[in-house]
């Protein structure tokens, strides 16, 4: 029993240990006196975090079999593991991109690491949660870390962004919990398994529908779904790219995982929720794509892209089947890598420009970097030879599979894709030097890791785009 427990909680434990190590190192500063090299504390804390995350990933891979513990409040199955690994990878990539951020705050760099690790810990706990209480605590854990992370960089914009995220999150959490409280009232339980059993046998009431929708709204905020979607533009515009890298991936993965679980049981017994998901998803996608058309700020464009892609993913979940769930996860994986590639590029050119507009995108000294960024953008648009293309096929396939009733929605989606292509093309062609932007900036890339990250992400995007079958088969296996 205890062995099992440890077996399952290796990643959590490793993360917590890393947090402790970071705190100790940060507070005691054992090396700052002996070394003159001023980046040393950044380097060491980075290495510790990387080791921690890799350890956690290895631990997740190492743990065998499914498990449910703590009175069924946490369960660990293969899909949880898969998504946890994805979360950890995203965290790892964000750590690689943090140099620009930490150079501004050398002494406080351990705080950053503690926050990142906390967010990851919260994320993987939430993925495994089988209980509303655990879910709530884990999500809050992640959110609190994210507030600080967003507000972490020096300067006013990050503070404002953090504050906006906080307010919106607080309101949405209130919605979520209000819904949870009604579920509690209806079922006298907070455990997903018990709730599912109760609703399977009982006739569902309007209170149940409203409670599910409130829960969905509360969780949807983290994906930037309507009703709480507008924050994403402002928050992205005010944040630093390595934080955005985390913000645009980890909560998405976590919430998608949680939603898949909730929709397959707790919330899945009323038809209203499906309609609401579809409508909210479509509204969000429509809003994000149309908003992006006139936008000129790269970060805001990526915010729109983030919102739109999350919406597509959620639309898949509206037709809940095992195929749809695996399609959504596949789409999520594809999206995460392309997105991280794009943010890696932004990370590369960010320090030079206060306001990153489209015409500044071409300011890189390597054409390969630019091409990799363009590839990621085209991938986000769903053009072929990238993973986004396969993701798009599966998205449409899972929608059409559920019958021809959804055909009008599919057609609307097609138009949204097309509108989206417009701004992705704008992003992609931003890399090409035109006469106006031909002023060469030969500067040194501050962060030596962003280039490998960018190229790696582009490579993954292409590899998934060309040889998707292995990953796909695994995704399908997750939900069988």
């Amino acid at each position: 029993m205890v062995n099992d427990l440890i077996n399952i909680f290796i990643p959590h434990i490793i993360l917590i240990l890393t947090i402790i190590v970071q705190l100790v190192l940060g507070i005691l500063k054992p090396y700052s006196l002996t070394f003159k090299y001023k980046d040393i504390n950044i380097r060491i804390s980075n290495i510790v975090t990387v080791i921690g995350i890799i350890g956690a990933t290895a631990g997740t891979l190492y743990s065998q079999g499914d498990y449910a513990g703590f009175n069924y409040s946490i369960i660990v199955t293969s899909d949880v593991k898969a998504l946890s690994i994805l979360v950890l990878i995203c965290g790892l990539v964000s750590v690689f991109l943090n140099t620009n951020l930490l150079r501004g705050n050398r002494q406080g760099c351990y705080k950053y690491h503690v926050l990142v690790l906390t967010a990851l810990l919260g994320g993987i706990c939430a993925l495994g949660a089988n209980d509303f209480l655990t879910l709530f605590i884990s999500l809050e854990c992640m959110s609190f870390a994210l507030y600080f992370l967003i507000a972490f960089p020096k300067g006013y914009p990050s503070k404002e962004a953090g504050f906006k995220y906080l307010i919106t999150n607080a309101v949405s959490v209130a919605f979520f919990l209000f819904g949870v409280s009604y579920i509690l009232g209806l079922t006298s339980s907070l455990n997903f398994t018990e709730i599912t059993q109760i609703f399977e046998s009982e006739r569902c009431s309007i209170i149940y529908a409203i409670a599910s929708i409130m829960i969905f709204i509360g969780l949807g905020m983290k994906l930037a779904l309507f009703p709480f979607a507008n924050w994403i533009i402002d928050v992205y515009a005010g944040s630093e790219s390595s934080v955005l890298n985390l913000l645009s991936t980890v909560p998405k993965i976590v919430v998608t995982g949680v939603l898949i679980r909730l929709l397959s049981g707790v919330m899945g017994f009323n038809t209203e929720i499906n309609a609401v998901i579809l409508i909210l998803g479509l509204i969000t996608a429509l809003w994000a794509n149309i908003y992006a058309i006139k936008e000129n700020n790269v970060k805001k464009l990526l915010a729109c892209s983030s919102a739109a892609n999350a919406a597509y993913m959620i639309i898949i979940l509206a037709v809940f089947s095992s195929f749809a769930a695996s399609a959504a996860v596949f789409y999520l994986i594809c999206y995460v890598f392309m997105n991280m590639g794009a943010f890696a590029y932004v990370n590369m050119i960010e320090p030079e420009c206060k306001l990153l507009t489209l015409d500044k995108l071409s300011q890189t000294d390597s054409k390969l970097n630019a091409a990799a960024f363009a590839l990621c953008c085209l991938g986000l648009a769903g053009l072929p030879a990238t993973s986004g293309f396969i993701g798009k096929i599966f998205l449409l396939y899972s929608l059409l599979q559920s019958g021809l009733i959804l055909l009008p929605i599919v057609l609307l989606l097609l138009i949204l894709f097309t509108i989206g292509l417009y701004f992705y093309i704008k992003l992609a062609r931003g890399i090409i030097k035109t006469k106006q932007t031909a002023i060469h900036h030969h500067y040194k890339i501050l962060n030596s890791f962003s280039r490998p990250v960018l190229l790696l992400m582009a490579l993954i995007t292409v590899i998934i785009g060309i040889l998707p079958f292995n990953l796909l088969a695994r995704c399908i296996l997750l939900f069988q």
Partner: protein
Amino acid sequence: MLNNIGIYHYLVLGLILFLTGLCGVVISKNIIKILISIEFMLTAVNINFTTFGLYCKNLAFDGYIFALFYIAAGAVELAIALYIFYAMYREKQTSNIEDYGDV
């Protein structure tokens, strides 16, 4: 008189508090007031939880525990909010929410 107070009274009170909080968040211009309104919503949820904790017989003590956790979480949240607000305030010297829209 007091014996007539049932579960629905508590729930309606919770709902009213929740809506009040929501209105407060949307309407107040002062950031402190907004934070207080968020606390209103928190309290509304807590009322719900404790009510269900009280009235659902076969429930162990889930409702109360949830309320406890939520109180703790709310406190943390408020603390973070105040911290960030203070950082912002140093920049702008105002507590009007409308002045914090520069990004």
